[in-house]
């Protein structure tokens, strides 16, 4: 009797496994651009091209020719510095020419990081020389006192987000940034403060919301 019970239990396990594998794994669409399956009524993109979904916006990213200007503009700088131009020229060949969604690559993202870092550094240098009231991004930063607290980080991140992302940051994004800075930097010197600001600004300027079109 006990032996039969075990067999029934195993059968239930096997049937449950099959049902679960069918029931809980069909959430994603298997058709069209977003999935592509044999026999789908919409031809799958088998060659890396984007297939348009009717009545929807086509995802795209910043094109190479606009990258530097866009970063300079979102940092509220008037024109790129020679250092920024040099950095951009060094890496621009890896940035998408057309801004197509399917042209994004790992070197392209890395290039965005290196250009952003230089532009962020230019912004810090520019605003360091200004009175707090005249600054656009680092309004609450005390460049004479190298400490950097959470409220200063949040205020700066909000200004950067509004300028580069075109929106207010989510609470989670603010928390990600401040926690990350707390975890990766210790000590309060002028250089460390600059490093923290470059770090925060570069992370935000290189994240997807900045180069999404």
């Amino acid at each position, binding site marked *: 009797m006990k032996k039969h019970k075990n067999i029934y239990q195993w059968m239930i396990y096997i049937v449950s496994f099959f049902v679960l594998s069918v029931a809980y794994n069909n959430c994603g669409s298997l058709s069209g651009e977003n999935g592509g399956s044999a026999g789908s009524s919409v031809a799958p*993109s088998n060659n*890396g091209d984007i297939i348009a979904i009717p009545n929807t916006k086509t995802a795209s990213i910043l094109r190479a020719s606009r990258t530097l200007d866009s970063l300079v503009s979102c940092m509220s700088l008037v024109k790129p510095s020679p250092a920024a131009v040099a950095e951009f020229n*060094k890496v621009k060949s890896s940035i*998408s020419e057309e801004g197509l*969604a399917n042209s994004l*690559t790992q070197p392209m993202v890395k290039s965005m990081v*290196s250009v952003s870092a230089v532009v962020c550094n230019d912004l810090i240098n520019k605003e360091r020389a200004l009175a707090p009231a005249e600054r656009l991004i680092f309004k609450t930063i005390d460049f004479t006192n190298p400490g950097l607290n959470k409220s200063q980080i949040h205020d700066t991140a909000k200004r950067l987000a509004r300028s580069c992302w075109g929106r207010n940051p989510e609470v*989670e994004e603010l928390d990600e940034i401040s926690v990350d800075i707390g975890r990766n930097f210790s000590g309060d010197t002028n250089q460390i403060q600059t490093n923290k600001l*470059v770090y925060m600004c570069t992370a935000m300027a290189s994240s997807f919301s900045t180069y999404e079109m």
Partner: protein
Amino acid sequence: MSRKIEKEIQKEEQEIQRRKVEKNFQDYCISHGKRPMTRRELLGAGVLSFSATMTLPTLAGMLLPLQARAQSDECPSSASGLSLAPFITLNLSGGAMLASNYVPMDAGGQTLASYNKMGLGNGAVPIDREFGNVPFAGEGISKLLVQLRANATAQTLAKTSFVAIPVRSRDDSGDNLFDASGMVAKAGLVGTDLPNLGSNSTETGIRQMYAKIKPPTPLRVSNYTDIAGALALGATGPLSNLEEPQKISLLRLITRLSESQIQKVNNQSGGRMLANLVGCATNKNVELAEREKPTVDVRQDTSLAPVWGVANNTGDNNQAVVFGSMVKSALIGVSGTVALEQGGYDYHNGTRTTGDQRDGEAGATIGRILESAALLGKKVFIYVTSDGSCVSPTSDDRAAPWSSDRGEAGVAFMLAYDPQARPATSGFQIGHFTSGQAADDKFITGGSPELASCAVLANYLKFNNRMDLITPVIGSTFNTSQLDQIIKFT
């Protein structure tokens, strides 16, 4: 870092997680007008983790063939590429007369009655055989062969196979579908760091259109610093003030921020593909930053520097430095496909001088690639293309000048090197020339650069012993009988 700070960070992280779950819950309530109740709804709302999908294989995944799975859902992975040999394209832009170097044969495998429009005179062309039994214009006529031999040792050539593909193509045009790198990338060759390197800013990295499949956006390399910049982060500039662990953390933060931001384009055309590429790219940057950096600078490689004729003080934009470093990055697996381009091949200027010089330069580059592979003990597959070719005045003179374009006399080359031994082949020519001294466009590949490129892919896969990949990559472009005719590697 003090224990108190660590605890605070931990607490903040838990709080972030709690808020995420709360936000997912609220979003679900707003979009569905009710609270999630069933297990399925809780999963959909992101309140429960997807443990079921993590542990069970999908039925679709088990039943659908490889080709049916969306390319857009996969990161370019080097996993299957590990078994594929480096693939290097050399494009001779302008219309090189390759058929006056390699001597094309007719349908019966015999020499043509005459080559008097091809700058080789009558049918009694002196033949010099290399790569086993492959006929080249001898007595120094083929400058490509002369320079190839000058830049690769006899031992290296003894382990190299050569196959020619007579194929007509458009003269002086960037519209020929000769680029095979997209197909090769789809087969799995993407490199550990850089998926595709090219010489100019087209979508193929050379002045050719892609056949069948668009390749990964090539990193255009016109200067060694292009590669160095793509491999290193923050070697100079403000990021150089950060410590290495801080640079890695910065890339991780960018990844996390981008992953949450990308969700909003998921429903746009191409959105899921873009979301996937952003995830792949940002995560790959973290992975690369955590690893020891490979050296691809050919000047720093004491064995390869002499092959490319470069030294420590050779400039970053020197062509040999650029090509040598691109080739090295392909041979050591840092990059996937590599496309080199040499210009100046529209050389029909009423002389043979310029053409001979350019052909020699092509031979030198091919020889250097082969020799580099030999020195590193790596396999390599080289694909040589051009756009159109040349014609000479009808003449028995084997040094007749090039007078105009003549795309119907086009030829592409494949070379494969294996450090163990010469890869076996069943022949050295796919298709043939006609008595009219032109590629026979009635043959499968003779009139179509795209089909010729597919034939190159088929031979590349055969060379790699990976014919299982041909259908997933190009479907049923060729039937079995056609494959028998176009595959020469055995």
